[in-house]
């Protein structure tokens, strides 16, 4: 078993989709997925094409690139421009626009910006360039933070003095709460972030079921995982249950990964608040390096502008991130804001809802809604259940 292809089987997908169609009834379902990886899979496999028209997937703020405010991008660019600095980052970040261009533009302008696939690559660059100062622009939710933490621990163990981290790690629970508190949205349930959950387990989502009465199903990233998750949410509601369920059992332990949580505690602490693009300031929603690692904290060692920059007026990323607007409902979608001339982050990151829709969904949405409409039964299917 390879654990990938088996969960992409088209025949099984149709079976699950048929079950969903048979059971979802007349109600208009709105289920939010909060993980950018889910957004990407949904569009890449055309999952919405398989779901009945009454089941709507709402794309939430789960793309950690998308939620970085422009000011923090500018800070990264400022770091890259400092003497002797090599700025390292993941590929997704390179084209995100700051107030005055992206990291890629900064590189064209002479800054030493290098793409890496792992924080360990950045560490290697630091080892190989002892006369330079290497800054790793860390992004990601709890899935990625332990990797940054382990890298910092390794840097400490090796006594490296030229490795720094610009920490923009964010956590998933506070924005979920912000969404739930938002008056704009009525949701039936959540597809929980599968890989974040390998670290934090499934208990942290219990506040959603207890305080907000919405079911949460923690779901994997293959198309069958997502379909099964949707089905499980619908079943919960229909059966009057409201729990946190784990669909991704092959990888997620209910209690998470204790070692990962331990390294997080050794390296990071929670920021009092952090600005999220489109969602404003959210308390206790992000991580920073703790005092033991102050000497590796790029924000402390270097001077960064630290200026809060408002989004361009035209940008409606915030509403798209909250799932209030669909990508095509944004005023500048596809016109002023395109993948090659992005105004906001939703269009740059491959997981952003706008990029996903523009790149993948454009054609089939229009065409298949027509087909789905014609296929919609006038009476509800005589479901066996």
């Amino acid at each position, binding site marked *: *078993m*390879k*654990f*990938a292809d*088996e*969960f992409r089987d088209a025949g*099984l997908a149709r*079976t*699950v989709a048929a*079950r969903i169609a048979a059971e979802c009834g007349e109600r208009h379902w709105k289920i939010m997925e909060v*993980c*950018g*990886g*889910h957004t990407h899979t949904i569009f890449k496999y055309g999952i919405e094409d398989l779901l009945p028209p009454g089941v709507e997937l709402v794309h939430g703020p*789960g793309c*950690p690139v998308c939620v970085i405010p422009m000011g923090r991008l500018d800070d990264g660019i400022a770091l890259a421009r400092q003497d002797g600095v090599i700025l390292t980052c*993941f590929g997704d970040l390179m084209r995100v626009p700051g107030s005055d261009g992206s990291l890629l533009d900064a590189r064209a302008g002479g800054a030493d910006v290098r793409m890496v*696939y*792992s*924080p*360990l*690559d950045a560490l290697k660059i630091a080892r190989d360039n002892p006369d330079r100062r290497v800054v790793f622009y860390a*992004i*990601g*939710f709890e*899935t*990625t933070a*332990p*990797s940054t933490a*382990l890298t910092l621990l390794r840097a400490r163990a090796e006594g490296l003095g030229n490795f720094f981290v610009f920490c923009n790690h964010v956590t998933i629970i506070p924005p979920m709460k912000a969404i739930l508190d938002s008056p704009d949205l009525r949701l039936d349930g959540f597809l929980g*972030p*599968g*890989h*974040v959950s*390998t*670290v934090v387990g499934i208990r942290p989502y219990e506040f959603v079921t207890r305080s907000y009465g919405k079911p949460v199903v923690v779901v994997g*990233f293959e198309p*069958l*995982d997502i379909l*099964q998750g949707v*089905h499980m949410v619908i*079943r919960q509601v229909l059966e009057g249950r409201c729990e946190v369920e784990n*669909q991704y*059992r*092959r*990888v*997620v*332990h*209910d*209690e998470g*990964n*204790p*070692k*990962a949580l331990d*390294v997080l505690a050794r390296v990071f602490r929670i920021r009092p608040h952090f600005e999220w693009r489109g969602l404003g300031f959210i308390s206790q929603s992000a991580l920073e390096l703790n005092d033991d690692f102050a000497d590796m904290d790029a924000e402390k060692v270097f001077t960064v502008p630290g200026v809060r920059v408002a989004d361009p007026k035209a940008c409606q990323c915030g509403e798209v991130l909250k799932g209030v607007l669909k990508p095509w409902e944004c005023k500048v979608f596809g016109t002023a804001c395109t993948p090659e001339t992005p105004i906001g982050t939703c269009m740059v990151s491959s*997981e952003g809802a706008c990029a996903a829709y523009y790149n993948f969904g454009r054609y089939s949405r229009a065409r298949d809604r027509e087909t789905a409409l014609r296929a919609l039964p006038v009476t509800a299917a005589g479901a*066996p*259940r």
Partner: protein
Amino acid sequence: MCLAIPARLVEYIDAERQYATVELGGVRRRVNTCLLTGNDATAPGEYVLVHVGFALSRVSEAEARETLRLLEGMGAAYDDEMDQVRRAPELQP
């Protein structure tokens, strides 16, 4: 930041089991395995979830089979099976 993929752990590189070679489709990569402890301890030949150069957790073949079985059973007896699964003690956390 969710791109994590299952890959086969071929062998550990060091005695402390901090690094291993993993393989996917004939392509090999070196990953850090510090997080594979406790429930995630993995033996060579088993699969792990790889993310940005780190193995995050072990992929359980038993659970994967169970998930597929549930998916495949989404025909007639699905609902009865789901009830049984929820009550099965060996699959509780």
